[in-house]
């Protein structure tokens, strides 16, 4: 199982085994997995892979899915240019 090269985070091409190994070695949360592997940090903001990261972390003995949203959402929730951020009309 630990050699599973299936891509979990499509944006950053982080594999199941990379996430599993990181969660195993550091006994860490989804957030720490994200910071260590970049899984969930691509242009989609983790929209596609966040539930899988949470489930993987839970499966290897990390915190189980609770009422709290494990990977917090931060603005901007869509990638935008500095121009848009600065108020430039599209």
């Amino acid at each position: 199982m630990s050699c599973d090269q299936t891509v979990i985070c499509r944006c950053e091409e982080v594999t199941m085994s990379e996430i599993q190994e990181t969660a195993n070695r550091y006994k860490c949360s989804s957030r720490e997995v994200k910071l260590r592997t970049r899984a969930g940090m691509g242009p989609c903001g983790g929209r596609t892979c966040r539930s899988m990261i949470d489930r993987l972390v839970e499966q290897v003995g990390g915190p189980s899915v609770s009422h709290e949203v494990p990977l917090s959402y931060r603005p901007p929730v869509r990638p935008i240019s500095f121009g848009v951020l600065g108020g430039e009309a599209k």
Partner: protein
Amino acid sequence: MIDLVIVGAGPAGLGAAIAAAENGLEVVILDEFVKPGGRLLGQLHEEPDGRWENGIVEAQKLYDCAARLGVTILCGVSVYDLQQVNNGWCVYTTKQPFESKCLLLATGASETPIPIPGWTLPGVMSIGAAQVMGNVHRVKPGEKGIIIGVNVLSVAIARELQLCGVHIEGIMLPKQSLVSGDASKPEAMMESLLRLSHLAPSPFIRFGGKWVSPKLGTLLYPRNGFKMWDIPIQLRKTALEIVGDKQVEGVRVADISATGEVIPGKEKVVSADFVCIAGGLTPLSELASVAGCTFCYVPELGGHIPLHNEYMQTNVDGLYVAGNITGVESAKVARAQGTVAGLSISRELHALQDTADDFVHAAVMKVKETRRNALIQFQPGIEEARKALYEKYEEQAGKPISI
């Protein structure tokens, strides 16, 4: 300042806009897709009386009604941030910021992925992507497809793709992995399918729905699966890998036991030029999270749900939710919830007369009735889960919100 900004022009957003505009509120709807209607656009199904329900027509009706009432509907606009400002909300978009007294999040759901080796190849797409391609854009996702993931959504959309002239080679389970969960278990998926049995033309599954327990069902039916609308549904086959060099060429398939274990020596590659991943839906609640809502994890409703009451109010001032962001259900339920939200917001902004409570109450009743009459139950236990959620809201009301 605008009275109400709505994020999402699906059935919930449009339904809310209509209710609010009917009571004289100034409403702006924002949506990032190219046309209004949301998930409703792709839907096409046959009612038990043989009538076809066409989502494009339904969406157009809602749009026309909202437009007639003076609602501003802006498509191709993405919301990237929200902020509470004095007496209202500021919504930051790729077009311009909008300030409003109340804000409704009707952002719907996103598709739950099932990672399979090879799923990044061009030609692999979510089942909803294929639905939109065929029914909305009128482009076939491919000529011959395999669907991975057996559930109510995948079977319904397989049928729609067939109507688009696409050949569906089969619907099968994903290979077991740490993240596949129930999706790779024949028994659990049979149970999910039995919730469709009243719609199915297959005598086997219709019989199953009435008399057979899911467990018996998976043991009984033939190894080669059974057919619904001539589409093979293969609960005893698993997709190990999607193969192809530059794009999809096929799927490596193995036989599995009733408990989901691969039976060795039975692997083969089935050719296909596209593959759909059908993992179900998850409420898309990122903006509710940014806004500071409290969340509840409710598997029956599809995942993390912003805490809200029956009136679609969250525990953040002036912030409402409606539609699939509050739990995955049919478009009709979303539409009815939208009406509740639109009326609740009208009440908050004192646009309703003395009979306000009666109106809102009637709309809440309508949601319950719609839910009971829904053709497709996405998950069992929706009504109970909602009741528990609303009780939790009441418990927390009055308490300070911790973010």
